[in-house]
């Protein structure tokens, strides 16, 4: 129909596949996220540490460069589980800030003017909707966490040989599984908070509350009741426990780095960490489902 010919015409052209339509929503979400001015500098920071690590691995294998730089070999770090603990911790901390910045504004605008009911009157399911809104965040956080981690493993393997990978096969496994677990939890939490808290700064603040106040409360419980189960409220310790188990086959005290570490002599069983994380994921999914189902129909 030409713009000068104002008559209604039915559409008879090609249609996209029904199961890929959520990708259209993902594209719009991505474009909205990209428009955030604050997100871009944080993202740059997110790619800094992997660059430093790439350089570190390169130097670790380049004797000529080490001689030129007059570096003592014994002072150099080893490319082992500790190296990747540091990498994962630094990147996970940055990804947390990215999620707190980019996550909370994803669902609340759809709810504030009942736009969700119009969206869901289209041939997409509630799951499609959540996937479409969440996928760009998952992709973004993956690009900061486990994807560069795998690149580092590939670089190290290419320089040190496949024997290194044979000995350290748990590292890439831990990067992918542990990274996806972290990214999934962060994204779901950001979506759930976005669905329930209208204002972005408040939703972002609530994420900090859950991660830091929860940990403080858990530590207080441990002190008062002389136990270690309070760490189940500490998401960072839960993640560190899971990462340590994935990387080393056990979660011993002291494993981890920065904000993500396993408390010495206060280790919690790995199964309980998995269980606590599963409960958190289930709670986020339940909160999301409840909110979206409630807003689906305009009464």
């Amino acid at each position: 129909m030409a713009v000068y010919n104002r008559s209604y015409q039915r559409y008879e052209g090609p249609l996209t596949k029904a199961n890929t339509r959520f990708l259209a929503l993902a594209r719009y979400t991505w474009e909205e996220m990209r428009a955030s001015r604050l997100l871009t500098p944080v993202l740059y920071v997110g790619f800094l540490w992997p660059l430093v690590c790439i350089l570190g691995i390169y130097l670790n294998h380049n004797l000529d460069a080490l001689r030129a730089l007059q570096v003592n070999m014994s002072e150099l770090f080893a490319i082992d589980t500790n190296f990747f603990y540091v990498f994962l911790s630094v990147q996970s901390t940055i990804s947390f800030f990215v999620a707190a910045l980019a996550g909370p504004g994803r669902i609340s605008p759809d709810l504030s003017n009942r736009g969700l009911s119009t969206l869901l009157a289209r041939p997409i399911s509630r799951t499609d909707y959540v996937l479409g809104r969440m996928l760009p965040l998952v992709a973004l956080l993956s690009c900061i966490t486990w994807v560069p981690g795998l690149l580092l493993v590939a670089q190290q393997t290419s320089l040190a040989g496949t024997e290194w990978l044979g000995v350290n096969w748990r590292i890439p496994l831990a990067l992918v599984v542990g990274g996806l677990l972290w990214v999934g939890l962060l994204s779901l939490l950001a979506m759930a908070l976005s669905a329930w808290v209208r204002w972005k700064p408040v939703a972002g603040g609530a994420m900090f509350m859950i991660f830091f106040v929860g940990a403080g409360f858990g530590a207080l419980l441990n002190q008062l009741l002389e136990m270690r189960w309070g760490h189940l409220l500490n998401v960072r310790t839960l993640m560190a426990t899971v990462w340590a188990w994935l990387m080393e086959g056990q979660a011993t005290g002291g494993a981890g780095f920065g904000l993500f570490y396993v408390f010495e002599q206060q280790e919690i069983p790995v199964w309980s960490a998995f269980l606590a994380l599963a409960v958190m994921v289930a709670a986020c999914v339940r909160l999301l489902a409840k909110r979206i189902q409630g807003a689906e129909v305009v009464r």
Partner: protein
Amino acid sequence: MAAIIELDQLEVTLGRKVILNRLSATLTGKSIGLLGPNGAGKSTLINTLLGYYTPTSGTARVLGHDVRKDARALRSLIGFMPENDSFIAHMSGLRFVRMMAELSGLPPAQALERAHEAFYYVGMGEQRYRPIGGYSLGMRQMAKLAQAIVHGPRLVILDEPTNGLDPAARKRMIQLVKEIRAQEGTHLLVSSHLLRDVEECCDQVLILKDGRLAAFCDLEQERSANQHIFDIELAHNAGAFVEALAARGYQSAWSGNGRVRAVLPGSPEPLDLFALAAAQGTRIRSLERRRDSLEDLFLKAME
């Protein structure tokens, strides 16, 4: 004619309350009006047809698809204009409508083209790049219509389309609805409190009351059934006029204050009545072809 909406003993219960109570109807019209007082179940019926509510018993089929089993396929064939504001405030009208088209399955390029066209069609070509949050109420109504028709649906469901519109905008909306109705293969379901709107746009009307079917009428049939009845107001000497009608074998009733209702068989010509009145030494002040208004039908259904 193929059924657009088929309801067979449809019952919908929300909580413990039965909202739709064993509705049965086969709707085949190009444009179907949905009427009923508040709480009659109009919105619940629309939401059921969209697949939001699962029928407790019975079936509902839209364009041959069972709402219980094929809700997804059904939604690709339906365009829905909700009664309340339903938009994403920060998005421009064009971007919002384009996104809706893409979610309905249009490829991005076609979706963009159709979004532009839809905005021009509803008369908002100049406002399409503005955020929807800044639109006036009338503009939002038009934007809602644009998103409902952008993907070229087979059934367009309009819930109170003239809500909050000034007379000029209302006229424009009714005109658009009529144009959409005229398109081959496109059907309309219009829910409105304004009987005049439904009367102007629809050829079939479903009237609900307390979740039950209070009346179902074909407006075209009703109109043709009443087309031989005339309400006549005479200047004087109405008695003689009535006698003259009776002498010709026409039925009539005289209310005593110069008003006469006459039933003329065949293909009556109003000019004959003027001639008859002149022959009786009187004149006709007003003459109106009588037809049961939708209001009459609605009030009968509510009794």
